[in-house]
């Protein structure tokens, strides 16, 4: 075991060592120090002012001002979007401006913009009214057929009144026009004309009828082009064109202003965001009024300490402060956050594991194995090298366009696919490998690796359909023999093969999980866990399912006809019975009895000793006795190391016992159910193979049988669509999901505590983008 101690620590195996630090910053360099630390992005601040409301904090005014400024910036962005201007991206060569200057500039721009909008609104209103008046004139000219209108025209005045409400659509502008009492108008006829909404015509007519007691003549026409009255119309038209010109000028002016804002907008938004983040962080520090400095606490990785110190020195120098910033290490009570330094390749896998739970501080990280086993188990369920090549092409396209796609904003589905591009690449490579082994290229087998091992018994092949072929050569060297495809006995053979394969993979992966729990226990120096958890678990699991795996291998190697179901079940039901025909090993019966006894002994072994010993240790400690001789320090109560809770001094025996019982029962029952759960590897690969066979035979071959080119093309198209959507997308997602479940529950359930919290440093790079 010393071999493992002498190995260097593996990169991603355990989380970075963290240390708890305290910063004491003089007030004048505080702002600068925090913004430099934000650039560096390696320190997670603890909120020391947790109990204060947001309004009681020190820098609440600055945060409010930043909020105001970002509101103004959002307003500008809206206006730019509404005016459908493209945002200009000038390279920002302008000098950096101060925050106060920015504030005043933004305020100016805002008032300007609001004023321009208001003026534009008013002009537009006037314009629309004039437009309506023009239409009314056109219509009214058509109504007044009587010839006396000539004299009257000169006296017509434009009076606009009676707006029923301010809404343009519902407005009915009634223009009262007094007519000179002419000879035919002695009766006192008046006319009123205007514009009204079409849906309100009936109601209006009825209302007028009632109001005038039936003494009215109502005429209406839809607003179209009509004959117009020349003189008055000219006045109206000239005003209309003036207004149009004014409106256009106004819009142009506003667009220039928006353009000039737009070129700075991104830079300003970034600045304001950073400032707000800096003030939020400053709010987390304790303002020590008597000493005129700020005290902050936080976590940082040990490797980052020199970088942080250098940054702090630079901040002191840049702000011309007399006093340096004090930065020193402190002890912490709670457990540190978990930080893994991932690159773009391992990042996606770490995300997958973190989705189940963030690792406890410095426990073994499943990612080290998941990087390979996850795509591999996917491929076992997906195995078809034709589909694998399609997936590979897709992954390569995503990777080739990495830079371009990385800076764009993608839809949610594309973002998932892009984020997982390296996962998909590995999945594709392994799928090609498994496809070669299953010998399926869009479900067609090939003779790539030599001749098949089977041939007819005699040259007439008369009994090929009844008794079948025989094996006359050595086994097909790589993968499944191509003779199996399309047979009547294909499914029984493949089912048996794939089920046993699933059990073997399951036993292997779960053993790996239990072994990782050994390494965890060794790292945290908890020999209790090793002796009373790891050992009984290994014994129990391997005496039952390891034995099953062994039987499978022996059956394959010897070609025996033993029935493994029978062997396993009767091992439990009547272990002392004669095995008879199912004998696979020498001395199988005593061996089985021994294994059964070991398994039975292992169950109380993993259940009782640990709580009892914990209780004994606690009693000893509590009574103040000195610790015993043999490394009792290993069996410290602090083997709860890394739990985020505070250490309590009380020890509840029943609670610990129940916890251990749950753990033991989960393991024992889980051994059976988890092993069976691995049969999904068989199930999904069967489904995939059958689906692709159906599409190939019943779509492509069927369509190809016809001589008609159209039917052939149609068949090809249907085959392509079915392959792309059902096999490539749906099956990929399905296999992805099931491989994920196998990892999360069956593999990580054996060793992963997952009760840590993630390291979230204060970093400008990780600030959330504003919503577009």
């Amino acid at each position, binding site marked *: 075991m010393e071999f493992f101690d002498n190995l260097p620590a593996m*990169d991603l195996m355990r989380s970075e060592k963290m240390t708890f630090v305290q910063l004491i910053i003089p007030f004048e360099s505080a702002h600068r120090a925090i913004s430099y630390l934000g650039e560096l992005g390696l320190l997670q601040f603890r909120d020391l002012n947790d109990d204060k409301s947001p309004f009681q904090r020190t820098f609440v005014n600055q945060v409010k001002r930043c909020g105001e400024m970002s509101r103004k910036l959002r307003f500008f962005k809206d206006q730019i979007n509404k005016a459908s201007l493209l945002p200009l991206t000038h390279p920002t060569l302008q000098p950096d401006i101060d925050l106060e200057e920015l504030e005043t500039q933004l305020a100016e721009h805002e008032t300007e913009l609001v004023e321009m909008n208001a003026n534009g609104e008013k002009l537009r209103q006037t314009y629309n009214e004039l437009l309506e008046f023009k239409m009314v004139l056109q219509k009214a000219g058509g109504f007044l057929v009587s010839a006396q209108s000539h004299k009257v025209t000169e006296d017509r005045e434009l009076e606009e009144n009676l707006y029923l409400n301010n809404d343009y659509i519902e407005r009915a502008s009634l223009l009262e026009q007094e007519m000179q009492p002419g000879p035919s108008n002695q009766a006192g006829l008046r006319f009123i004309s205007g514009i009204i909404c079409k849906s309100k015509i009936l109601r209006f007519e009825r209302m007028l009828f009632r109001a005038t007691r039936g003494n009215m003549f109502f005429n209406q026409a839809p607003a179209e082009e009509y004959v117009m009255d020349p003189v008055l119309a000219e006045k109206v038209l000239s005003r209309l064109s003036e207004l149009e010109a004014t409106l256009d000028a106004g819009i142009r002016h506003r667009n220039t202003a928006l353009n000039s804002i737009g070129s700075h907008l991104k830079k300003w938004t970034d600045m304001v965001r950073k400032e707000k983040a800096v003030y939020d962080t400053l709010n987390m520090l304790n303002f020590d009024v008597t000493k005129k400095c700020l005290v902050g606490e936080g976590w940082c990785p040990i490797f980052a300490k020199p970088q942080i110190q250098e940054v702090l020195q630079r901040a002191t120098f840049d702000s011309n402060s007399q006093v340096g910033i004090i930065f020193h290490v402190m002890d912490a009570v709670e457990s540190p956050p978990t930080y893994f330094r991932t690159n773009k390749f391992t990042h996606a896998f770490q995300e997958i594991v973190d989705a189940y739970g963030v690792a406890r501080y410095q426990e073994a990280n499943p990612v080290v194995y998941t990087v390979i086993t996850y795509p*591999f188990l996917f491929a076992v369920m997906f195995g078809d090298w034709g589909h694998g090549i399609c997936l590979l092409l897709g992954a390569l396209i995503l990777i080739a366009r990495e830079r371009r796609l990385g800076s764009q904003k993608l839809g949610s589905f594309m973002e998932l696919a892009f984020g997982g591009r390296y996962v998909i690449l590995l999945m594709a490579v392994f799928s090609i490998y498994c496809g070669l082994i299953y010998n399926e290229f869009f479900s067609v087998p090939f003779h790539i690796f030599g001749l098949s091992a089977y041939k007819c018994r005699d040259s007439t092949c008369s009994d090929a359909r009844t*008794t079948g072929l025989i094996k006359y050569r050595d086994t*097909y060297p790589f993968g*499944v023999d191509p003779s199996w495809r399309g*047979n009547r*006995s294909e499914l029984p053979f493949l089912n048996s093969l794939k089920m046993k394969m699933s059990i*073997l993979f399951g036993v*292997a992966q779960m053993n790996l999980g239990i072994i990782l729990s050994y390494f965890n226990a060794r790292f945290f120096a908890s020999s209790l866990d090793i002796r009373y958890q790891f050992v009984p678990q290994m014994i129990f699991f391997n005496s039952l399912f390891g034995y099953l795996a062994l039987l499978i291998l022996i059956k394959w*190697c010897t070609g025996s006809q033993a029935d493994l179901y029978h062997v396993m079940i009767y091992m439990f039901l009547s272990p002392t019975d004669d095995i008879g025909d199912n004998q696979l090993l020498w001395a199988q019966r005593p061996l089985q009895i021994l294994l059964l006894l070991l398994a039975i002994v292992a169950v109380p072994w993993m259940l009782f000793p640990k709580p009892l010993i914990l209780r004994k240790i606690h009693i000893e400690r509590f009574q103040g006795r000195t610790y015993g001789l043999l490394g009792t320090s290993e069996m410290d109560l602090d083997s709860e190391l890394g739990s985020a809770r505070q250490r309590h001094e009380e020890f509840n025996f029943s609670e610990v016992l129940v916890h251990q019982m749950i753990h033991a029962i989960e393991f024992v029952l889980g051994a059976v159910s988890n092993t069976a759960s691995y049969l999904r590897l068989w199930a999904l690969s069967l489904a995939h193979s059958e689906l692709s066979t159906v599409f190939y035979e019943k779509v492509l071959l069927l369509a190809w049988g016809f001589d008609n080119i159209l039917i052939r093309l149609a068949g090809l198209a249907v085959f392509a669509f079915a392959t792309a959507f059902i096999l490539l997308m749906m099956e990929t997602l399905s296999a992805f999901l099931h491989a994920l479940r196998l990892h999360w529950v069956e593999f990580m359930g054996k060793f992963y505590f997952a009760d840590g919290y993630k390291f979230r440093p204060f970093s400008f790079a990780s600030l959330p983008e504003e919503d577009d």
Partner: protein
Amino acid sequence: MGFLITTLIFIVTGVIASLLVRICCNRGPSGNLFHLTLVITATVCCWMMWAIVYLAQMKPLIVPILSEGE
């Protein structure tokens, strides 16, 4: 014999792959150990897959029975 020879081929491929990875992406002892783990895991997984399928076909209990129309 085919089994042992091919197993040997797998082992040799694994060794060559880890040497290649060490040559092209040398990243210090901890990084190298990580890469080595990945290569070993991949080799073991691939070998297991091949070995299982090969062993299952060595002494088969059923033989291919052609169906109608083959």
